[in-house]
């Protein structure tokens, strides 16, 4: 992954003319979005603007009505099943509540994708799982625990460890800091920034957390009115004229987050 870093404007995800709907309710219409290699893209928008739906549509969990979504130049919906599996191995997903398998320990959760997709020796798999658990910032004894024995923050870290199990090139994070205390959220932000930097990850981050946007996102896309209202860096957001965007970034919470950063 590292040799590609020079070419920083290569779009790894490219969405064109996307339309999704549940029954009569149209969620996205004519949505265009690019995610470039190595960037941390924050996706924001009011409740019900389809941020999570967009994430789920990209990874193929939600059907779409129209449009194309190319990840690494391939459209998931038009691939053979084996090619789909191969593409899915190149991304990792952290669901909102971790979505850990409740009948497996944390270590087994992290090993699950390796066990399923690769033929690795047992011991190497345990070593790699232990390393990923440590990289996700969990203490060593967390590996033997079941998800129900973990706190919310630890569950998210465990979910991140599982998302990173196959060394993906893109990680999708669905509100990773929601429900964490400010200190835990800041630590999680730092972890994501550090991992994305040292592992050369591309991060697709759905969030409501203004602090996260300031702290780790290199680019922000605002969802609303069924499409991307604006995409760009923080400076673009702060000078953009759309009323919702102004309210979001320049409202009391937005300003507080900016002060924090300064």
């Amino acid at each position: 992954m590292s040799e590609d870093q020079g070419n920083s404007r290569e779009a790894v995800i490219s969405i064109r003319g996307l339309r999704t709907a549940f029954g009569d309710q149209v969620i996205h219409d004519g949505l265009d979005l690019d995610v470039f290699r190595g960037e941390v893209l924050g996706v924001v928008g009011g409740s019900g603007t389809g941020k999570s739906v967009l994430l789920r549509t990209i990874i193929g969990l939600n059907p779409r009505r129209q449009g194309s979504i190319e990840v690494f130049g391939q459209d998931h919906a038009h691939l053979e099943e084996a090619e789909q599996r191969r593409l899915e191995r190149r991304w990792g997903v952290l669901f909102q509540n971790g979505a850990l398998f409740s009948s497996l320990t944390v270590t087994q959760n992290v090993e699950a994708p390796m066990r399923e997709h690769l033929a690795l020796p047992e011991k190497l798999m345990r070593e790699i799982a232990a390393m990923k658990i440590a990289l996700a910032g969990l203490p060593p004894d967390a590996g033997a625990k079941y998800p129900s024995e973990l706190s919310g923050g630890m569950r998210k870290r465990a979910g991140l460890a599982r998302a990173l199990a196959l060394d993906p090139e893109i990680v999708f994070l669905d509100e990773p800091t929601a429900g964490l205390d400010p200190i835990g959220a800041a630590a999680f932000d730092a972890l994501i920034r550090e991992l994305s930097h040292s592992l050369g990850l591309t991060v697709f981050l759905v969030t409501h957390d203004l602090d996260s946007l300031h702290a780790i996102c290199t680019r922000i896309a605002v969802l609303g009115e069924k499409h991307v209202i604006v995409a760009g860096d923080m400076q673009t957001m702060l000078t953009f004229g759309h009323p919702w965007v102004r309210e979001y970034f320049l409202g009391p919470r937005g300003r507080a987050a900016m002060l924090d950063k300064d």
Partner: protein
Amino acid sequence: MCPVNNLSRAKPENGRSAGPPDQTQVKRSQGEGGTALEFSGEWTISGLASTDKDLRRWGDEITSRTNLNLAGITRLDTAGAWVIFRTRKMLRDRGLEAEYAHAREEHLALLARVEDGDQPLPPETARPNILMELLAEIGGFMAGAAQEFRALLGFLGLTMSVMGRVLAHPSRLRLTPLVHHLETAGLNAVPIVSLISFLIGMVLAYQGAEQLRQFGAEIFTVELVAISVLREIGILLTAILVAGRSGSAFTAQIGSMKLNEEIDAMRALALDPMEMLVLPRILALIIALPMLGFIADIMGLLGGAVMCWAALDISPGLYMQRLEEWVPVGHFWAGVIKAPFFALIIGLIGCFEGMQVQGGAESVGRLTTKSVVESIFMVIVLDAIFSIYFVVIGL
């Protein structure tokens, strides 16, 4: 003397679709300055299986100063970096000098990152002897069963005290959930209970007649069907059906409410879950089960009558006459009197196991199964106790 090992592994089916298939290669050579390990190819997680084994062996084998030459690596991920780092660590732990050489900057950063994640593996738990394990399992099961029986008795006591409280203040009885559960556990069970009892009545009549015909005593088929349906089968069958239909539903409902913290929310709002959830369910079963048992009795007798008419030429009139003459109503009471007790047991176990749910979805499934098996078992045990008791008191 230059031992050279060349390892390569290609796994086309696992290869990333862009670029060549994943390969990890490492070459070991002995030079003047010590050992050199030359790493090349794509050091990513999908190609590690074979090189891992050799590197682990070499980590124990090599006795000289070692250079880990990383110049040939085209692609590196954390898993690959881990294996390289581990090799160096194994050598260093044995007091040897081992250094990375010609590594790219970003690869060094990744290797440093992986070093942060280095921690001792938890010791592998030794598998105890299988006999010991079996004994321990049996012991654990017995201890668990005893503990659980005590807890169930405690729950019975709690239910009784809540029931007493509600009887003292009838306005505390939740009428809406009671009626709702009467409908789902009682009324909605009528078709299946009727159908099954009807069929069993037919089967009993047919099988009984086959045997009794050998003594020329077919006419006793009526008593056979009537007594067995009224005393035992009607009510037992109903109880088993209700345990499977409603006992399991109680466990699953209360269990998922517990997972969803609804039970805690009730307690926090000073609402008693025993009063809100458990009592209406148990009371509904206690009211519904005798009625269902009565329906089962009637349908069983009806099934017997149909079969007697069809196969034995015993007309419905004759059937009724023999019933009235030879089957005293005591048999019916001996059956139906058991129904409220069965209902109490089914409701109690169903709700109790629901309250035991903790952790995740798996626990709901396990305890639902347990609740059905336990309540059917307890119903049959209780039925046996009743039989002995009725013999003793001559009912």
